[in-house]
């Protein structure tokens, strides 16, 4: 329970701290939460399910308000709680870090994100899912670029549209099952008629496809990413997006299991179109933030497509790839923001030769670029290859289109790096990295390499709960 209450208390407290100290307070507090999560990790047995909140009382309408975690939920909670300190740290030297509302909103966000991953009740999942929308909206609005009203309105309405479709799905299956408890819902997901199940998974899909975003629903994303402040972009891409991928694994497929066959290839196609489409657009982009936004569409399209295959291996690897994407997203958007805030432009052609002016930045940006194009010994290498292999086994063409991401990824990332870092310097000076930025990059690199060398830890960690979810979907009600 403290995983939810502590961030909430910290969010409220950060209004009481004097403006000078608020950034230290935020950083330390987020580290305390991380330490707490690690404390949970040490006591955690991967086979088990730990209940956080389990009301004994019968609640009306079949609500259960169950909170708890198994290994799948827990690894994402761990991801959230380790990414938040990194986000605060990368912001540390900016004016924004001393803003009370900003710090508070980040922690409100953490409440919602932890809640999404801890919820074991359909309605509670929806509630936390929606709660995350308000802080991110305010972060984008108050601390983003001026005059971004149209972008925000689009973002908000788009996301809300998806959420309401999901609410409808949850209500429909909840009324059938007379309970919103996760296990009951998943068991019912295996036995409801295929047609209903198909509609239910479509409702979920709309919500997740908008959040991920999958190909035709992605139009809100590049404009939102570019007008957002750095921390907002990081929260959106490194964490909120994971809610949707997690939702696909844990909620969408089990709850609409009998109907999933009919939308399986739809989602795979959309995901793979996203892979190619995002990459092709990214190659032609000159705006570095937009480029990274499209790169993100390309990367997550692969994960979403692979998840639909729903074999144990794919899901385990998808988790690794999700973590890897968080690492890459934070690194890239930090680099993009460093470029933008120090040169006041995002245009690649206006940059150049920065590696000479700022060798440290040149080095660390290169490392994150390599992590992003999945060179061996980084997490992406392992993840992407296994996902492509699984897609290839499903259909050769799927595997083929997915594999283009390796080539295209190298093209757009190296192009971005080359144009901004090499060549004759077009700028007089460029301030090199500060300590906090180096620290963030170093942590990211360490994580990526560790994950690349020892992916088996994560696989063994999530395996029991993935097998359990798959057992639920084949449950025989008798």
């Amino acid at each position, binding site marked *: 329970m403290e995983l939810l209450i502590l961030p909430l208390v910290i969010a409220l407290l950060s209004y009481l701290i004097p403006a000078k100290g608020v950034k230290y307070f935020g950083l330390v507090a987020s580290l305390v939460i991380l330490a707490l999560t690690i404390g949970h990790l040490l006591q955690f047995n991967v086979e088990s399910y730990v209940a956080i909140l389990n009301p004994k009382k019968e609640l009306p309408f079949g609500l259960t308000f169950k909170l708890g975690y198994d290994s799948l939920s827990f690894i994402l909670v761990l991801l959230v709680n380790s990414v938040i300190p990194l986000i605060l740290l990368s912001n540390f030297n900016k004016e924004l870090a001393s803003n009370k509302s900003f710090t508070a909103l980040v922690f409100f966000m953490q409440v919602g994100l932890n809640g999404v991953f801890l919820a074991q009740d359909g309605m509670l999942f*929806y*509630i936390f899912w929606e*709660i995350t*929308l308000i802080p991110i909206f305010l972060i984008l*609005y108050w601390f983003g670029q001026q005059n971004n009203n149209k972008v*925000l*309105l689009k973002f*908000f309405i788009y996301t809300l549209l998806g959420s309401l479709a999901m609410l409808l799905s949850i*209500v429909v299956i909840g009324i059938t099952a007379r309970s919103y408890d996760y296990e009951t819902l998943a068991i019912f997901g295996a036995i409801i008629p295929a047609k209903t199940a198909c509609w239910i998974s479509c409702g979920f899909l709309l919500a997740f496809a908008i959040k991920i975003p999958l190909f035709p629903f992605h139009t809100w994303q590049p404009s939102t990413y570019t007008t957002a402040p750095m921390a907002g972009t990081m929260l959106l891409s490194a964490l909120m997006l994971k809610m949707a991928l997690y939702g696909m694994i844990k909620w969408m497929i089990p709850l609409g299991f009998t109907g999933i066959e009919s939308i399986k290839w739809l989602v795979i196609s959309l995901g793979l179109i996203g892979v190619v489409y995002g990459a092709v657009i990214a190659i032609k982009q000159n705006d570095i933030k937009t480029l990274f936004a499209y790169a993100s569409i390309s990367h997550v399209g692969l994960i979403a497509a692979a998840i639909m295959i729903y074999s144990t291996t794919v899901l385990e690897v998808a988790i690794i790839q999700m973590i890897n994407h968080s690492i890459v997203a934070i690194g890239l958007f930090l680099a993009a923001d460093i470029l933008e805030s120090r040169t006041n432009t995002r245009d690649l052609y206006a940059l150049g030769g920065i590696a000479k002016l700022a060798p440290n930045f040149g080095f660390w940006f290169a490392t994150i670029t390599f992590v992003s194009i999945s060179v061996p010994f980084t997490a992406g290498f392992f993840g992407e290859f296994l996902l492509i292999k699984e897609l290839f086994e499903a259909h050769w063409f799927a595997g083929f289109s997915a594999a283009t991401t390796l080539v295209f990824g190298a093209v757009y990332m190296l192009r971005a790096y080359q144009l901004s870092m090499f060549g004759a310097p077009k700028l007089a000076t460029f301030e090199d990295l500060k300590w906090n930025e180096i620290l963030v990059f170093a942590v990211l690199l360490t994580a990526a390499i560790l994950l690349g060398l020892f992916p088996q830890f994560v696989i063994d960690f999530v395996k029991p709960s993935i097998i359990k979810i798959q057992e639920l979907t084949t449950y025989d009600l008798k």
Partner: protein
Amino acid sequence: MDALIIIFITALIGLFVGMMKKPNLTLVISVLGLSVAFVVMSYYGKYSSLFNNFDGLKFDTYHWLFAELVIGLSLLITISGFQYFKNEIEHTADYYGLLYFSVCGALVLIGSTNFFMFFLGVEILSIPVYVLVGIKKSNLLSSEASIKYFFTGSFATAILLFGIALVYGATGTFDFSELQTLFDANSPMAIVGILFIFAALLFKIGAVPFHFWSPDVYEGSPNPVTAHMGTVVKVAGLTSIVTLFGHTFSAATDIVVPLFYVTTIGSLFMGYLSALKQTNFRRLIAYSGISNTGFAMLTLFSGNFISLWIFLLGYTAATLGLLTISQVLEKSNSDEIVNWKGIGYKNPFLGVVLLVFFLSLAGIPPLTGFFAKMILLINTYENHPIMVYLTLITSIIGAFLYIRFILNAFAKESNAEQIRIHPLNIFVLSVCTLVVFFSWIIILYV
């Protein structure tokens, strides 16, 4: 019954003390009177009343909740309207007197067990409001609103009376519980009768197709009176319409359900779609009120009082809060939406409460608005899934409307002024915010 008498006496005292031009004393007496009424109401049925043998008014568990809500709301309206009528010292007496007479009418309407008391309730509720709307005699808009409301309203009352007469003619009884058994859905006279009653009640709550008065009247009336109409009158009207058509006339369900469909869908869409183009804040509130009435009318399908109550709690708290903010800003000509630009940015307190109220109206968790809509949807889905789909679509339009307003109110570069808020208004806003934030917990104890 005792609470009703206490409020009536409070109204009389308020009237006379108000005439002596002592606004502070009037406020103290009113708050005291209403608080006593609130407490007495909360012990309803637990002590032997002075009028135990009177059958015309009975508050069962659910109606008791609505009565408490009405008294609580009028208490808040009194407090938030104090500032306004302190400046209009000429009208203090009429305002307090008429407002509480109208509240008495609302209680009678909610507690009525037969058509006689029911009609009495409707009249006592409405007539003071006709006067209150036109209380600013020198203001043309106000007078226009009053005339408009009075003529259409009295016409609706006549229709209501006609309907009651027809139902009486068909069944021979006024009593609701007897009507429930005696009502014959095959009798044309009875059907015409309940249609008339339905139409008149739709007018009172401002639902489509009888909603045209509400934007004009909301715009023209003084702010506290708008708050009264948007909350107390709506609560009383919706309670009575659900009592009658969800329960008393349940025999006629097959005949009236198509009407429910038309009016509910009409209200839902008409309200938000018209609101999109509004430039006047109180017209916007009126149209959003029409849509929210549509939401509340979903309970007609299930007849579930508790979901209606929670919805009304969330809706009235948010509306009252918004109208209080509008009143706080009155000096900066808050009626025009363009003048709200940057208000939330310059006045963080107002900004936060504005955000909370609008998000609750838009149905974003974890605010009461969301939980209320969730229960409505769960209750409606089983028998009328189509209503749920349409409701969700309107929710999106509504969210668009509210978010656009929030974006406007929080705009950064603007010359918005900083506003000193009267402590009483701060109190009202805080209470409304707390209600919107936490009252959903009640659903866990239903």
